[in-house]
């Protein structure tokens, strides 16, 4: 086991190490490389490594990641090790340790403090920002913005954005978009404050936002919404969160025609194609008589829905349009089944509400999720949560008998073996196990096992039965742990079931318990059958541990010790007791000196010689030795081969106590 785990872990570790080495080699450059590329005028973002501290090594990891990202923008990312390649200009001063440099056109273009370029997002954002230079402008006041708008009017549309803080993913998304669309739109970054106020954003905390200013086309010709006198460009706000993909989709959407004409029924209009696939479609209907009016309405609405949805005008004169006259609008949402929904509108605001509301709802939903995440209204106990989730389903208790203080004695006297589950309704483990218990009862019923009486006791109700004081008539001590399963036989003290709380384990235990313990064996046939046959057809796949007692006469002192131990083992282990004649034969065969015990653990091939134990003075000691002898050596592969429950059922003790810690620490030490 040790060796096996160690090997696996070492293998992973070494694999990890080589991979890491490769990575760091990929971005490492020599002085010669550096000078060569510098002369070629390529853009380079370089770090000169002098000493490696934990912060620096974290930075290097990020640097590696950004190499790939910046490759797409033609920027070479790398590091030069000063120890190996002492480049005088950049390796001399200590403060250069905290600086990364951008080279462009054969010279140092700019430098960044490591405080500003700390992760892949900030590296990409800052480097692109530096490269884009004038293409992305900073605007601090509304007056500046107005000037920009005037300058752009009729030429370029403006993408105005506010980023909550620099070096974030949002900043990076904006810079990446600016790099792509920089020539098409004027990108402006605002720093918050007065400009935000002008844009009527007064929420706090302020989120990163993007607006699209329609400056290129003359506004008056487009929309009746914007006052004609306005000097400002009409603007559309991006409603989705700022990310590269969303921003890209948004810009694409604004490029799309404002209103498209269709001559087929909305249901046969295909859902929008990429890049608009996430955009809802809104259909308005046009009559030949009012076609101009309808177009105006559509345009007005389209303006208000810009960036939110695409507007399609369906011309009713086409015979393909099947929509009933009572509807004047329809829409199709992305994702959620591409079905078209029809409705009758009374005002344009209704449509707008439809989409804005939905958004809010989604936001609200998110909000609810967050609350649940804070674990206020949710059960954090997996068993309790599962039981709680299932609370609507009432247990069908027909297959079990409910024991009460009144009927207890009568019920127990009825059958040779009563299996009683003591439970509390509010104890999740109890309720969880109750359903398994009922399943076992049903299973026993189905397989016609009628000598086992399955009972349950609700200890929340029959408190005096469960807490019956010692000395009273019940054959058990007060129950103080729930759930508890007791095996009760008339005129005997009850036996506690101490196995796994699963139906499978309990069923197995009950079936095994039906066998006498020990089984008296008087002939060789009986012994063979005891050692080789399954105790019950239901247990055919299960291989129990077996032990045989070799005790000469009924008067030998070991007998009571052995029978006592056999009683405790009932249900877990099959025990047999050889009678007089056979004892000598078996003792001779295995060189045993009775009283002795032969063990046939389930994990060992039955043909192999059994292990031998001498009978101790006390059954307690004997039990302990039997348990440890039945323990299998832990074999590598168990973990993957056996399903968990079986693992724990078959190798009862393998993980008990320190063994578990042992396995656990074996793993811990190797990592």
């Amino acid at each position, binding site marked *: 086991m040790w060796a096996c785990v160690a090997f696996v872990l070492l293998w992973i570790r070494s694999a990890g190490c080589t991979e890491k080495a490769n990575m760091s080699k990929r971005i490492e450059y020599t002085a010669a490389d550096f000078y060569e590329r510098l002369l070629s005028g390529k853009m380079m973002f370089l770090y000169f490594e002098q000493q490696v501290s934990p912060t620096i090594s974290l930075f290097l990891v990020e640097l590696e990641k950004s190499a790939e990202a910046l490759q797409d923008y033609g920027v070479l990312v790398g590091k030069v090790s000063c120890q190996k390649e002492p480049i005088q200009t950049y390796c001399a001063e200590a403060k250069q340790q905290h600086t990364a440099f951008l080279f462009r056109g054969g010279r140092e273009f700019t430098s960044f403090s490591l405080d500003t370029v700390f992760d892949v997002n900030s590296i990409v954002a800052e480097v692109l920002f530096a490269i884009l230079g004038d293409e992305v402008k900073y605007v601090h006041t509304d007056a500046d913005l107005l000037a920009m708008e005037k300058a752009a009017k009729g030429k370029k549309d403006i993408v105005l954005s506010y980023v909550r803080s620099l070096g974030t993913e949002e900043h990076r998304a904006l810079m990446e978009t600016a790099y792509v669309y920089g020539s098409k739109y004027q990108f402006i970054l605002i720093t918050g404050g007065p400009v935000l106020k002008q844009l009527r954003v007064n929420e706090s905390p302020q989120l990163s936002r993007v607006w699209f200013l329609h400056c290129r086309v003359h506004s008056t010709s487009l929309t009746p919404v914007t006052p004609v006198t306005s000097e400002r460009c009409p603007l559309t706000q991006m409603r989705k969160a700022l990310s590269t993909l969303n921003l890209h989709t948004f810009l694409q959407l604004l490029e799309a025609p404002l209103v498209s004409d269709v001559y087929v029924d909305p249901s046969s209009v295909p859902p929008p194609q990429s890049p608009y696939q996430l955009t809802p479609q809104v259909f308005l209907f046009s009559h030949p008589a009012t076609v101009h009016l309808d177009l105006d309405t559509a345009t007005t609405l389209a303006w208000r829905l810009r960036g939110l949805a695409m507007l399609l005008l369906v011309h009713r004169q086409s015979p393909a349009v099947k929509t009933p006259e009572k509807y004047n609008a329809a829409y199709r949402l992305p994702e959620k089944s591409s079905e078209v929904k029809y409705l009758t509108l009374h005002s344009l605001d209704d449509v707008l509400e439809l989409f804005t509301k939905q958004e809010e709802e989604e936001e609200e939903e998110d909000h609810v999720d967050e609350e649940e995440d804070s674990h206020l209204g949710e059960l954090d106990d997996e068993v*309790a949560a599962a039981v*709680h989730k299932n609370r609507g389903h009432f247990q069908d208790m027909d297959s079990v008998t409910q024991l009460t203080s009144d009927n207890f004695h009568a019920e127990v006297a009825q059958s040779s073996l009563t299996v009683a589950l003591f439970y509390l309704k*509010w104890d999740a483990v109890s309720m969880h196990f109750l359903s398994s218990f009922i399943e076992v009862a049903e299973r026993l019923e189905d397989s016609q096992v009628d000598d086992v009486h399955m009972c349950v006791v609700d200890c*929340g109700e029959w408190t005096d039965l469960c807490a019956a004081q010692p000395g009273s008539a019940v054959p058990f001590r007060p129950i103080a742990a729930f759930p508890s399963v007791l095996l009760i036989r008339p005129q005997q003290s009850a036996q506690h079931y101490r*196995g796994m709380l699963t139906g499978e384990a309990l069923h197995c235990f009950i079936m095994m318990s039906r066998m006498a313990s020990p089984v008296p064996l008087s002939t060789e046939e009986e012994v063979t059958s005891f050692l080789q046959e399954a105790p019950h057809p239901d247990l055919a796949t299960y291989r129990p541990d077996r032990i045989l007692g070799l005790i000469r006469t009924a008067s030998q002192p070991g007998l009571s010790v052995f029978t006592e131990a056999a009683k405790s083992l009932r249900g877990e282990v099959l025990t047999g007791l050889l009678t007089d004649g056979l004892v000598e034969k078996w003792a001779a065969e295995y060189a045993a000196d009775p009283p002795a015990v032969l063990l046939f653990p389930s994990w060992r091939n039955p043909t192999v010689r059994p292990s031998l134990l001498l009978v101790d003075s006390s059954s307690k000691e004997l039990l302990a030795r039997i348990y440890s002898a039945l323990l299998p050596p832990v074999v590598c592969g168990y973990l*993957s081969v056996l399903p968990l429950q079986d693992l724990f059922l078959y190798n009862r003790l393998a993980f008990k106590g320190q063994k578990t810690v042992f396995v656990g620490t074996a793993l*811990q030490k190797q990592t």
Partner: protein
Amino acid sequence: MEPNLLCFILSTLFGFALTSFNQHLHNGTRHYNYCVLGAGPAGLQMGFFLSKANRDYIILERNSGPGSFFNKYPRHRKLISINKIHTGRWNREFNLRHDWNSLLSDNPDLLFRKVSGEFYPPADAFPLYLSTFVRELGLKVQYGVDVGRVRSVQSAAGRSYVLTDQHAADYSCSVLLVATGLWVPQEVEFAGSDLVEGYESISTNPDDYKGQAVLILGKGNSAFETTQSILGRASRVHMLSSSPVRLAWQTHYVGDLRAVNNELLDTYQLKSLDGLVEAHLEDIVIAKQEERGRRRSGGKKGETRAKLYLGLQKFRQAGDERNASDVSPEELPGHHIDNFPLRRPYDRVIRCLGFRFNFSIFDSSARPPHSHNAKGRLPGVTAWYEGKNTPGLFLLGTASHSRDYRGSAGGFVHGFRYTARAVHRLLEHRYHGNPWPSTRLMTTQLTSWILKRVGEASGPYQMFEVLGDVILLQGSHCEYIEEFLLQALPRFASLSGHEVSSHGLIVVVMQYGKKKIDYLGRGRAETDWTKAWKSNFLHPVLYYYDSLPTEQDMKMRPHGWPLPRPKAIHHMVEDFLTEWDGPLSHIQPLRRFLEHCIQTDLRAFSAETCFRSALTHRRSPLSCQQGYLNQRGVQRYGQLTRGVYEAGLVPAEQVSAGTSTGASPAFPNYLAPAGASVSSGLKLDL
């Protein structure tokens, strides 16, 4: 170990000394370890515990049967203690919450319902029940012994009490349990108090009050009971006492006016000639005057009845040595205040002021002091009901009510049956070395066990804020001690014989909210568990202390609190059905509180989760240690909610281990995601 052994030896010697004396007659003196004075409900209750423990005891009773008080009282023969038979539950402990008359015993059938099925049973049923109790349990009661003198004797064997009966026979007792109840009518001295009839002797025939104006002194249940019976005959009934009427359903105190008796409130407020008045009884004067006007006109009858006038001390002319009945009209308040409410004369004045403890039989060497509360009517006792200054003399039953006067139910059968049990447990420890019974629990079972107790326990429910369960935390196990006397908590170790470990203790108490609210108004119930501390109705409260509070702490506790300020407190939100078993509202908050107190994860985990944690953590959660790793794992059940385990806790034991469960071929795939999440963020060094 040493003190325990010493204690054992001492108690054995003591017991030996006692038994050797026992049953021997020295100069006509009988010796008993335990003498119980009075065969009322409290005396018999104690008798049961003593008999169960096979102690040498005797119950002495001056009358010929048990519970003789109830042969006479209540005068109108209806008990107002609830005898609720139909609770819809089989739980016998729970049912005792709604059975105010039964005594505790091991016989589940020996309940009051055996003698009466009525909700408010007839008073005659109670002595009948008590004699059944004596008979079925074979309690040793000696009737006809009227103890007239109790004195304490100091001897080499220790202090003992000697009781002398009417035949001058002596009973010597090592421990004296006084359960004589309250039966001496409480009286107040004022001018003309001899003109007043007492509750104990009034006629209970309503016809005797036909057309009469009646003034009743007192506003308790006996006063209202009397009022109720004559309401249909009397011309007007006025009730007078110093304090305004207190309604039991508002004060939660069963000794205050019960709704079953409050018809007069109706007739008063529905303008029907009856009424309530407040005045100090010491200040009043009752004066008898012949009604002169009537005498002439009513000459036919030949017999006239004198009228009783209510006066006030301040209008009496000073230095007057006349008979109280001779009051001149000028001395009546009506002469001075023309709208004096009680200016009209009465035909009868009845005193219904309750009863007081009979201190007179106690010699000064054995007399407990008067209580500070209850107008000194009750004996003062310690938190464990031992008379102050009288070691070995305990007070039981109604007489012990000074501890929770006007608070809990210690003066009533359904309360003092539990305090008697507590006293008995204390005796068992003090004199016989048996520690208080306790239940040893695995800490993982603690939540369930507390829920069981708050869901059914009748002792802390009836004796709210007086009795509470004490949980001694001991790491993976704990000791659960039921129904300890909260006020005696500083002496817990010496009284109970259990030691408090460094893990501290939790006390489970039932209590009402402290805010005075409109008890029938809107918003009276708190349903949000996050605001459980605002609960108004009876609800469980858990106090966590890291060490036992001291006497000083107890003295300095916030006003109205049953216990000193704890290290942590948890209110379980009040529940309309008094069933505190909601998974979200009750169980989870409770579990989190316990986790906070014992700094351990108490959640239950499935076998899979336990397995994962066993591989990735040095120490598994407690439920895995006591369950799964003990081969008692729980099967994963359908779709157990994922991510629950990731919710946190046990971070202290997080060890960077098993970091590669996802990648290692040695692990089955289904372990990978979960394993990774348990140890997420630990992959840095690969």
